[in-house]
């Protein structure tokens, strides 16, 4: 049987100064993406809010792999600025990495 599931990538984003409301961050990225790349590209990316960490500073979102480049470019061009910390193909790997680097992250970004 064919595997019809979309390949997705999970992105950990630093939102330490709470420039964006935790759930509205996807809305803000979609809005900027539509402005820069158009509605079709934005819809194609299927951006989803996944999770937020306990301290509410790292937001995890996902998007389709084929539109990852577009999403990364969009995030760089956001105002107020947000940073893509890590990207992973699985949520588990991303969370493991975030856990491992959490001390470094807080020292660098807070």
């Amino acid at each position: 049987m064919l595997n019809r599931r979309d390949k997705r990538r999970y992105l950990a984003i630093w939102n330490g100064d709470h420039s964006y409301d935790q759930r509205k961050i996807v809305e803000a990225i979609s809005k900027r993406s539509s402005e820069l790349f158009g509605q079709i590209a934005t819809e194609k990316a299927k951006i989803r809010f996944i999770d937020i960490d306990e301290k509410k500073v790292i937001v995890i979102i996902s998007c389709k792999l084929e539109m990852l480049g577009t999403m990364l470019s969009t995030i760089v061009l956001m105002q107020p600025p947000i940073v893509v910390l890590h990207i992973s193909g699985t949520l588990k790997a991303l969370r493991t990495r975030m856990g491992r680097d959490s001390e470094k992250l807080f020292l660098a970004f807070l």
Partner: protein
Amino acid sequence: MLRRRDLCVYDNNLEKMLRAAEILEIDEIGSEYHGSAHENVIYRLNRPPSLITDYPYLVVSDKIGELSSPWLDIFVVRDYFRVKSILKKKVRTRIGLEIFFADIRQANGFSVGKWFEQVRDLYKLCNSINCQLVLSSGARCPREMISGRCFDSLLNLCNIKPERYWRELEEWIEIRLGKKCYVDA
């Protein structure tokens, strides 16, 4: 292995910027000199120092009158269309022409589209006059920095192959720093 570099970040807390760079997979950053030298930093100076330094540096200017100066390593392009014709006539070969992503964060979609077209044009110009295009974040704090993967996406958007860009930038930096007289600490 390619080393990614963001040659312009501004912050007094360089250690914090270096920590952020490590997380974001940026191997080397460029910053202003504040009296002490750090590893993995290339310093940006307005004028060549009169004494031998113990740190690597590049001399940077955004003043059009200094474009032909023999000591200039990087010219910061603020308004490409205004300086395009002057660049073609006056620029010395092998200098870096730098452009900041920070300049377009607040711009609307129309201006961002125009800006990327300017970068594509500037890249062609750099290839034709034997100069190095330098794309930098222009970040003023860690959260304005750009990760290595994001840089690659932006380069693709400018029709520049990331591997080629990072390799050429590395070679160019080696040549520029090789000409300087500084003591490797």
